């Protein structure tokens, strides 16, 4: 079974500043996907970014970027130029690649608060 650990329950950042969320995972698989999802108070789980394990290049989506360290099993999310709308709970998630087990395994989440 895969486990995903987010060691920071809460983070606070000033508007326009940068914040980095940590995520580590434990797996014996070599081929998998990693995700960051954002869940604002409205509860809608929104995909932020996706990383394929076979790709060495770190994924980026506008102000969001990841630092994927496969050997260390680490997958951190950097939010640059933080905006008030970034306030939400952020979940790191893991999914095996290949036929069969396509469930997402989530971490416990990190609550991010952006201060004006």
């Amino acid at each position, binding site marked *: 079974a895969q486990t995903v650990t987010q060691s920071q329950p809460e983070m606070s950042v000033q508007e326009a500043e940068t914040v980095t969320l940590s995520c580590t995972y434990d797996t014996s698989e070599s081929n998998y996907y990693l995700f960051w999802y954002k869940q604002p108070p409205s509860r809608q789980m929104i995909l932020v970014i996706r990383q394929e394990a076979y790709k060495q290049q770190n994924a980026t989506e506008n102000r969001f970027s990841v630092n994927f360290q496969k050997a260390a099993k680490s997958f951190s999310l950097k939010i640059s130029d933080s905006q008030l709308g970034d306030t939400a709970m952020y979940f790191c998630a893991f999914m095996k690649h290949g036929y069969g087990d396509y*469930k997402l395994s989530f971490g416990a*989440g990190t609550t991010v608060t952006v201060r004006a």
Partner: protein
Amino acid sequence: EAGVVQSPRYKIIEKKQPVAFWCNPISGHNTLYWYLQNLGQGPELLIRYENEEAVDDSQLPKDRFSAERLKGVDSTLKIQPAELGDSAVYLCASSLDGGDTQYFGPGTRLTVL
């Protein structure tokens, strides 16, 4: 393009009562998931459908939970009878196929009194 639709958004019931949740996935998505999210935690998979077939229901408490996706589109998740510990958010997600990115609905918040 419409996203994943769920109803109701909120439901309050007395314990031992039945309750049902409905999900309409993104058009064309073959795979549908039901997740349970307890307060302050990440979602956990209850059941996964490939078209109308339940291909992973290992985490579904089958003594009281049931689900169906009769025509391979909409899905219903039912609890009968509900217990106090079932209070949680029930999330539906869909993907084009298994292994593709999952897109989530807004969830149903269930409160069992």
